[in-house]
């Protein structure tokens, strides 16, 4: 149900965009208005969401420590797994954001005969996540060729590297393969790993199908059909220079690609995809484990009802005396 619904929405959206791209009267809507609106929603949504998080205070310093604390000088302290300084935190965050450090720890617990619990290496999820995210980044960079004139040297370099293992013509980009492979592994887990399937919501399948649709429409245009690339670039340049044009020779497939992308980015701020921004703010990762050395201030710390020594002495006066302990009030 969740799966089919998500798939159906992406299919209907693709069909709508194809029709829109085929009907002369709707090409401006799908080629100009929707993309502008989507970018606006994306930017405003992401900024507002991050501001909403940032406005909420961090009352306590609660890093999850994954290594030795800094204590006595002769004990080797884990600078990245249990950072004491700002630079240590920066290093930990860099590992987390760039290399998915925590996900790399992943293991798989299995109950065997005995009974014996074992914990095997489990790097597939990490690998698929890395493959997907980095390929997406490279594909995004490669797309800058459509939006910039002249094409920057960096983009050319990325292209050249990405097509290093050229197999036939047209040039095969490795990241296209990795991106699809990564997405398919992630989808496979959701569908066929019983635990992951059990926890999955429509909100988990939908972005996966959107991304798959986006990637497949791109692959289709690049490798299997002929698309007027010059016209696409003209249209892309028009969008970024705020002089939008929709040349007649732009294929309806381009509209599918663009509409799925528009849907993705417009959906982004309201979805779990915001983990992109959230990971930077996570208090168990981005705070130093220096709690006892530097006081953390809670802006809303308020007075509470306590039980003072005086009240305690008052209640147990006789027993304190009997036990031979000193009293404040004698």
């Amino acid at each position, binding site marked *: 149900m969740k799966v089919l619904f998500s798939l159906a929405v992406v299919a209907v959206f693709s069909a709508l965009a194809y029709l829109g791209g085929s009907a002369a009267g709707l090409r401006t809507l799908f080629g100009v208005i929707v993309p502008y609106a989507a970018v606006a929603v994306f930017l405003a949504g992401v900024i507002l969401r991050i501001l909403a998080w940032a406005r909420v205070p961090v009352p306590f310093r609660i890093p999850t420590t994954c290594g030795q604390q800094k204590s006595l000088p002769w004990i080797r302290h884990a600078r990245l797994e249990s950072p004491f300084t700002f630079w240590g935190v920066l290093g930990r965050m860099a590992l987390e954001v760039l290399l998915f450090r925590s996900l790399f720890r992943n293991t798989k617990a299995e109950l065997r005969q005995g009974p014996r619990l074992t914990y095997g290496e489990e790097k597939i999820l990490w690998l698929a996540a890395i493959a997907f995210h980095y390929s997406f980044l490279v594909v995004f960079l490669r797309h800058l060729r459509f939006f910039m004139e002249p094409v920057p040297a960096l983009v050319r370099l990325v292209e050249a590297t990405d097509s290093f293992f050229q197999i036939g013509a047209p040039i095969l980009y490795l990241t296209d393969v990795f991106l699809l492979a990564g997405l398919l592994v992630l989808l496979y887990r959701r569908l066929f790993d019983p635990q992951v399937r059990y926890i999955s919501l429509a909100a988990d399948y939908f972005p996966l199908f959107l991304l798959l649709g986006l990637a497949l429409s791109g692959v289709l245009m690049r490798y299997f059909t002929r698309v007027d690339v010059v016209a696409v670039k003209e249209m892309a340049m028009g969008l970024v220079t705020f002089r939008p044009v929709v040349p007649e020779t732009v294929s309806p497939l381009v509209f599918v690609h663009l509409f799925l992308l528009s849907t993705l980015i417009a959906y982004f701020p*309201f979805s779990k995809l915001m983990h992109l921004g959230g990971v930077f703010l996570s208090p168990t990762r981005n705070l130093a484990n220096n709690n006892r050395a530097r006081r953390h201030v809670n802006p809303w710390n308020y007075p509470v009802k306590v039980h003072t020594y005086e009240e305690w002495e008052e209640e147990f006066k006789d*027993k304190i005396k009997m036990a031979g302990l000193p009293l404040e009030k004698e």
Partner: protein
Amino acid sequence: MAEQHPRPEELTRIDYRPPARDWMDTKPQFRKGTYCYSALPKNLEYLGMPNPRVWQPHDEDWKLPEGWQQIILDGMKERLEKYRSFRLFMDICVRCGACADKCHFYVGSGDPKNMPVLRAELIRSVYRRYFTPAGRVFGRLAGARDLTVDVLKEWFYYFYQCTECRRCSVFCPYGIDTAEVTMIARELLNLVGCNINWVMEPVANCFRTGNHLGIQPHGFVDSLAMACDDIEEITGIRIDPPINRKGAEILFVAPSADYFASPHYYTLMGYLMLFKELDLDYTWSAYAGEGGNFGLFTSHEMIKRLNHKIYHEARRLGVKWILGGECGHMWRVIHQYMDTLNGPADFLEIPRSPITGTVFENARSTKMVHITEFTSDLIRNGKLNLDPRRNDHWNVTFHDSCNPARAMGLFEEPRYVIKATCRNFHEMPENTIREQTFCCGSGAGLGTDENFEMRMRGGFPRANAVRFVHDHFGVNMLACICAIDKANLSALMEYWVPEVQVGGIHEFVGNALVMKGEKERTVDLRLNPLKGKEGSDA
């Protein structure tokens, strides 16, 4: 009693296949052995907490207060605006499932709602329904659901089936910490009076008397005196421990279990012997006689209410700094909450060991030092005369207690002390120690008898790792630095690995410490004959 419990071979027949029905359509079964009993009204009344009444989780009617949904939703709103952690953890989970098999309760029960991701979804689904546009509009399709009595019961069941151990947060790519979610969820449950007695009674006792069991000042003095009698019998040395003494240099605070439970008691003897041998200028306090803080399992406000005593007493007694004993969640509170809640402790001095001169720079603000930091520094500087052969009858492994491990990073100090005092030491497998350590299964206030089956299930991963080192290396002693561990690991070992005993690190210190003027020792602190001294008359 014992024959009512399921046998180990029954407990390890675990079915990890999730049910066919969607998790939103399944309800928890309050089956005997898998949940804790409700808090007695007198405890809530004493603390001034809402909705004190007689009820039990297995009752149909929970006697919830009028307008309870609104109370919870208002409470959620308030906390979403106060805790970035809570807000963020409601928003950014991608349900990748990396946390699923990291939870000891999931591994031991196979119940999918014990997967940390699903535990959090129990509350996230309500968050979506009432606090996000998508949830308001699309409802269940967006993973949202109404807050009903059944949902509340489910919260109670599963948030009192989480020990706040933080193991899942080590593996989460965004650092989502279920302990944080559970703490907030329990705060919400507390707003409508859904709490458990095994947490609330210690809280009420501690607030009134200064310790979990409600021991009054004379009882406190007697407990320490009894330990001193035993020490005298074993070593020939008489100790007269200072209590509530003004002007001492150091205030020592230990978990109260150390002076009323076993095997904690041997750790207590170890502290007393060590301080005596050092001639340390210190004092105990019968008022601030509890390092443990079950407020952590209740609410942030209750943490502060209980923790307040420590600085308050340090100020009254005029000490320079504070030393803390072997306790797990106590150290989460001291390391991550105390200074923020009840500080600044600017009336104290930066801790400096009077024996070695070492300044504990890492505690320069909070002014409180962990006993294994203190003792490892003594050993490193050669200040203790240790005879580790006196622990030769122990083949030791070390259980990293959850909070010192994952909320403090205290890994090497306890190991250093063990290795200096014991000659036989073997680590458990690497996926079960240090930051990946497994909970004893009974933390966060769940260590009660009626919850026995769930505790044994939750503790199974830990016990299984102990079984491994017992079978391979002949380990017969499970060392730890947590009072809850000492109680619960003992039950856990009796159930899963009966060949293994449980003890604290300062018990080994007490055994190995060659004290000035002591008589020749023939028994250890438990009155076991020392190796090579068997048969000699103790």
